[in-house]
């Protein structure tokens, strides 16, 4: 019993610190209740680590022309290339190692997905909070716009925007933000309207706290659970949409191949039986989306008060 570390609760010595149920511990325990969610979380962590350390762990830098040998092109999985190492997942038409290309592609896909999800969360949350607090005409106007925008197929909005903006990482992110802010605005507004009526907000109003403090330090914190769930769902949506757009040749430029572009690149060879150029990036995309969704589903259950025992 290592003591003297905590004891901030001032509980008797029969209650060891490990037994105290902090919100974080309860959250972890609730989350771990589903095996599948834990597997999803582990997988997601692995994917994030791979994406982060891609330049360090990839067998080659697939975009360094000195490392790529055209003589190695289209090697099937498991073949040894000219550089003397085994290409576990084969090589593409230009002799790039697919494993390395996938690591770099994941890095790009996740960067675009997470950045656009974060940015649209910031934009959507602010608009949703303002709508909830302003009420009246502002509120109904903003929510009408949100309703109409959400009813439109995302691919159509993305198409109109990207035709105007052209290809590029920044433009794709911008298009995704324009598409996704509405979901955050709707979620936050719903939560904020419920929270606004609660006593702690009345107390804050009586204390004449500044508006921004009320909004961001008190109201927003209590709207976080549904926001987090929407965040995971929309990261998955952003990654999938970016892949789709890049596959169509509208998203990222050819010089920055995300998973979607890798799949599109391999598509030409799929019918000829060279499945690995397209299928392995596809599997990477699949694993990314499934793991994000598994984590998101479990988060929704954990945060759902109706499922609380």
């Amino acid at each position, binding site marked *: 019993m290592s003591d003297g570390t905590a004891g901030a609760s001032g509980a008797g010595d029969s209650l060891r610190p490990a037994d105290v149920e902090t919100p974080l511990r309860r959250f972890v325990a609730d989350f771990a209740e589903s095996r599948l969610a834990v597997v999803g979380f582990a997988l997601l962590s692995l994917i994030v680590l791979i994406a982060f350390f891609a330049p360090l762990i990839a067998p080659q830098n697939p975009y360094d022309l000195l490392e790529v040998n055209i003589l190695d092109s289209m090697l099937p999985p498991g073949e040894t290339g000219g550089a003397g190492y085994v290409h576990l997942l084969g090589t593409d038409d230009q002799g790039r190692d697919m494993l390395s290309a996938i690591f770099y592609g994941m890095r790009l896909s996740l960067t675009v997905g997470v950045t656009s999800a974060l940015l649209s969360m910031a934009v959507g949350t602010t608009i949703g909070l303002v709508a909830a607090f302003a009420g009246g005409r502002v509120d109904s106007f903003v929510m009408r716009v949100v309703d109409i925008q959400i009813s439109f197929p995302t*691919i*159509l909005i993305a198409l109109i925007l990207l035709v105007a903006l052209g290809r590029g990482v920044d433009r794709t992110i911008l298009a995704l933000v324009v598409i996704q802010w509405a979901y955050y605005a709707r979620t936050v507004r719903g939560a904020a309207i419920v929270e606004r009526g609660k006593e702690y907000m009345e107390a804050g109003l009586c204390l004449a706290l500044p508006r921004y403090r009320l909004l961001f330090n008190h109201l927003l914190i209590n709207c976080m659970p549904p926001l987090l769930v929407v965040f995971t769902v929309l990261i998955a949506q952003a990654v999938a949409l970016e892949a*789709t757009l890049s596959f169509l040749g*509208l998203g990222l430029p050819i010089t920055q191949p995300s998973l979607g572009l890798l799949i599109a690149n391999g598509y030409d060879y799929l019918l000829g039986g060279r499945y690995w150029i397209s299928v392995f990036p596809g599997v990477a995309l*699949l694993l990314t*989306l*499934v793991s994000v969704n598994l984590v998101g589903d479990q988060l929704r259950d954990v945060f759902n008060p109706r499922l609380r025992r």
Partner: protein
Amino acid sequence: MPKGVTKITAFIIRRLLQTVVVLIVMAFGVFVSVYAIGDPVDMLIDPAATEAQRLEAMRNLGLDRPLWEQFARFIAGAAQGDLGQSFVYKIPAIELILLRLPATIELTVAALILAVGIGIPAGILAGLYPSAWFSRTIMSVSILGFSLPSFWIALMLIMIFAVALGWLPSTGRGDVVTVFGVDWSFLTIDGLRHLVLPALSLSLIPMALMIRMARAGMREVWLTEYVKFARAKGLSPIRVIGLHAFPNTLIPIITVLGLELGSLLAGSIVTEVVFAWPGIGRLVIQSIGVLDRPVIVAYMLITVSLFILINLVVDLLYAVIDPRVGYGDARK
């Protein structure tokens, strides 16, 4: 009663006004977005052309005019159904879209039929036996249908059924039959074989939706008194489901189906590109590649208008069918 009627009228008028506003905003957005992109002259004219030839070509295409004038001409033209000539095909853009539209409609309708024909029975089964193994399988498939991008599913279908098994063709439309001047694939065996994979891949998202809705509806309605009574009377399960339970789950399903029709029109872009299906989605992606502005604009205006119109009709029908729907601002 008169009060109710005025309420419906007010609802319809407000909904129509909203539709008009959305249409105008979208038309403006489409025009500005498409006309903000680079100079199509560079794409269409031989780089070796002289300056005089360039100017001549620009004058012919109307691109030398200021932006506001192009917009005014665009609006005036759009009102008369004239959105300019395709730079590439040299025929009116609207005509080009209308020529390709039947292929897209064929694909969309086939996908809807598959979604309903497979999704609803599967959803009913899953709703009746929520813990059976096949129900879990059905639900897993529906989750995958939601979370995977459709181009990925399409590629897998090609991989399995066209490359590995060789059962079905992977691209194109196959043999077509011309009826009333329009080509249709579904009337020939070869055309049907070409239709299966694209339609299946496009149908997965609405199918997943149908499964969920049918399942939720059945689970809800199965616990109601009138279903219990029908079962107690000793009616056969088929009769109970077909005559008593299922019809009462239909209102939300029909609504969602209507809305999905609009989404499928847009969603078919991806499917058409993967399967080289010669519809409007593939046309617009090709047109974006060569900056064929009139075609891009015509595609967007037509798709957006169709989508908005479908939504309007579904909304109005819904309000008429279901007496519980409020005509006021739902959010109070």
